[in-house]
């Protein structure tokens, strides 16, 4: 069965996206990428540090992987647009994850500024994937603004707390005619699996993998969980019941009285 994730005009065979942050060393990235099966990975744009080594994350990202630069560090739409244009000038494509954050405690995204940045960048031909709180009205405005997908959070970035926004995510998945990529807060494969069972289009995981004792093994576990959740969604889970429904026949018991 062909079950592709379609974003803009591109199709992907796997539904786990990974981040490249928080690794002690960028040299881990190829192994994480391989075990996760991810075809889309995020990076951030920062000033060159003249004091640091000449190593560069791009040296560790194989050809053919869809790069998704984020606009982290942007506090408003204008800053996000500037970062997006710089990222595109790097020559690695026109995808951008819009992240506009001015709240430093919970790192919750600014929906209004995110919509403004999406309008501008979609108009400039970017493939825009905005990071949002799971707010239906913001998501609808992003659809109108030309977003290619929406990326609602499960829990605050880096918190590993799972689907704290479950009920709101369900509404976004039901109502938004774009891929819904659950981003942020997924700390365990079971949480990613549940998001996929709910009908999410994909999951993006960074900290959940990077903070594990064995990140390569955890990347594989997330990949399996995402695939299993997707298959379960497509298979159509049965209804849940408040009381028991016997799985074995309720007739023909050994000690059943025979009626004469």
């Amino acid at each position, binding site marked *: 069965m062909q079950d592709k994730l379609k974003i803009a005009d591109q199709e992907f065979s796997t539904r786990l996206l990974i*981040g*490249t*942050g*928080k*690794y002690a060393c*960028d040299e881990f*990235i190829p192994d994480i990428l391989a075990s996760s099966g991810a075809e889309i990975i*995020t*990076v*951030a*744009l*920062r*000033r*060159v540090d*003249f004091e640091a080594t*000449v190593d*560069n*994350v*791009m*040296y560790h990202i194989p050809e053919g992987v869809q*790069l998704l*630069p*984020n606009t*982290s560090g942007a506090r408003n739409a204008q800053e996000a647009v500037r970062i997006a*244009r*710089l*990222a595109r*000038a*790097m020559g*690695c494509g026109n995808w951008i994850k819009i992240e506009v954050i001015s709240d430093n405690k919970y790192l919750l995204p600014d929906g209004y500024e995110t919509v403004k940045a999406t309008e501008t960048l979609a108009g400039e031909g970017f493939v825009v994937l905005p990071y949002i709180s799971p707010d239906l009205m913001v998501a609808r405005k992003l659809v109108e603004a030309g977003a290619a997908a929406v990326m609602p959070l499960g829990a605050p*970035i*880096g918190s590993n707390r799972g689907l704290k926004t479950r009920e709101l995510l369900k509404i976004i998945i039901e109502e938004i005619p774009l891929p819904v990529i659950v981003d*942020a807060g997924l700390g365990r494969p079971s949480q990613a699996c549940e998001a996929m069972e709910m009908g999410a289009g994909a999951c*993006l995981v*960074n*900290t959940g993998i990077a903070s594990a004792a064995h990140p390569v093994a955890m990347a594989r576990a997330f990949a399996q969980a995402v695939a299993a959740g997707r298959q379960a969604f497509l298979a159509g889970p049965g209804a849940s019941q408040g009381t028991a429904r016997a799985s074995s026949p309720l007739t023909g018991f050994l000690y059943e009285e025979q009626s004469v």
Partner: protein
Amino acid sequence: MRVTVNGQEQELAEGTPLSSYLEFRGLDPSVIVVEYNFQILPEQDWEGIILKENDNLEILRFVGGG
């Protein structure tokens, strides 16, 4: 002359070409992007730029991120 590079003021020799400065810094052109006085500067345009007093340079690269 004074030039601001990544938010920090630097003293550079008059008439320093941008390409020489980037080379002096040991930067690999394939993995950086340069913004010159708030305009993105494509690599093919680096050659013609001679830095001058009060110029503002931003030199950026991708790093790990989520």
